[in-house]
């Protein structure tokens, strides 16, 4: 038991040291410093939100266009950034493996955590600003909102666990990644509710783990104004499978990792 407690202490030390190191190397200590981590999702949400509003008007399907787009685009940037940050994460950080208490899984986790915290900060920030402008409803159901975020994060993280080792094994992956993350946008639930789509495509879209998570987020925000459809077994089982594959691959890559 004391061994477990000691392990936990070391783990916490390592994670916080790696977080600080990552924040300092990426954002520096100048001007707003680590707050930059929410700048990118925020900019995306604001600019795409404005674009959609000018194209589609203030309201569509009974909900505010800006609120709808902002609430969808921030998780999407979390997913895209996490994928980018997970590629080659082992070779980039290899010199840290000189310290045995640092494990390769810590690299993936820390990078994902920074993206997730940044995205959630941006989400909260933009929600408060839009609420003050009367463009964003008071969240109808915080529970569903958090559950949706949790599932979105869970699935994204499990994808990182697979992508990180794969990107070390093959260079092709890194080159295919941008187009893949772009092509999957229609299956991410970012721009539509499932109920707005034709009935015959709805069951297929539910197979995308992102869709259920996104529907839950929207249900949490808009409540009765939207009709959310979700099936949490999809994101949970997809994440479980990816995690098992990812951990196996990580173990394999670690054995062959060359550290300068």
């Amino acid at each position, binding site marked *: 038991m004391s061994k477990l407690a000691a392990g936990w*202490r*070391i783990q916490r*030390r*390592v994670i*916080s*040291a790696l977080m*600080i*190191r990552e924040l*300092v*190397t990426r954002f520096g200590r100048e001007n707003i410093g680590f707050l930059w981590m929410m700048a990118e999702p925020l900019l995306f949400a604001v600019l795409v939100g404005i674009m959609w509003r000018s194209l589609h008007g203030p309201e569509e399907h009974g909900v505010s266009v800006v609120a709808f787009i902002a609430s969808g685009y921030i998780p999407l940037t979390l997913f895209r950034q996490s994928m980018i940050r997970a590629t080659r994460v082992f070779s980039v950080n290899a*010199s*840290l*493996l*000189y*310290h*045995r*208490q*640092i494990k390769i899984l810590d690299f993936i986790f820390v990078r994902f955590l920074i993206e997730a915290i940044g995205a959630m900060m941006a989400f909260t920030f933009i929600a408060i600003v839009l609420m003050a402008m009367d463009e964003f409803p008071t969240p109808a159901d915080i529970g569903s909102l958090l559950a949706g975020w949790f599932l979105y994060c869970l699935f994204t993280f499990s994808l990182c666990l697979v992508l990180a080792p794969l990107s070390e094994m093959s260079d092709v992956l890194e080159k295919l990644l941008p187009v893949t993350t772009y092509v999957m946008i229609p299956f991410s639930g970012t721009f539509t509710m499932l109920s707005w789509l034709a009935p015959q495509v709805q069951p297929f879209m539910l197979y995308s783990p992102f869709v259920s998570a996104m529907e839950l987020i929207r249900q949490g925000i808009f409540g009765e104004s939207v009709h959310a459809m979700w099936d949490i077994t999809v994101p949970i089982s997809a994440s479980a499978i990816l995690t098992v594959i990812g951990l196996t691959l990580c173990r394999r890559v*670690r*054995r*062959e*990792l*060359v*550290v*300068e």
Partner: protein
Amino acid sequence: MISCENLSKRYPMGSGHKQVFKNLNLRINPGERIGLLGRNGAGKTTLIKLIGGVEMPTSGKVRREMSVSWPLGFGGGFQGSLTGYDNARFIARIYGMEYDEIRDFVEDFSQLGTQLKMPVKTYSSGMKARLAFALSLTIEFACYLIDEVIVVGDADFQRKCHFELFDKRGDRALVVASHSPDLIREFCDRAVIIHEGSGRMYSDVNEALEVYSTL
């Protein structure tokens, strides 16, 4: 005690692979000082990395029953883009030490002065060795792994390293890879020659040096 059991390591090379060593066995008892001898590319650094857990063996096992330092070399274990001070902070955090103590010791031992405020990637290899040495001496290990690094630096720095390692920490175990016969003869109890994929232990250091000179 540290024991290496049937260690094999190979690296992929083109379509095949390069076998660095095969079924190597080695035991390091507490307080024992072992010199690693071998020609360039024989696998001294690789062995030190495996003992330190930086890289994993292709097969076999490394058992560590005492605390082992990270391999001290010219730069491994550093963040090039971070300053010397930031690296010291990082080490303090992951080893659960007080940063103030580490900083004072590093300033005093490394004599790097204001250079500590510069990113490590701007350091010369001698300066990196000074920082690496200073940082690793702030944490007390039962066994230190040293890769060639003692022989760099000026006379004053060498003297300081010898004092800190061989006098002050004379009771610790040590694994030193070096091409310097004098150093191995003076400070090591045993020596291992790594040659053509296998390692052989000599309890007589002079005998090892003699064999090594004929390789």
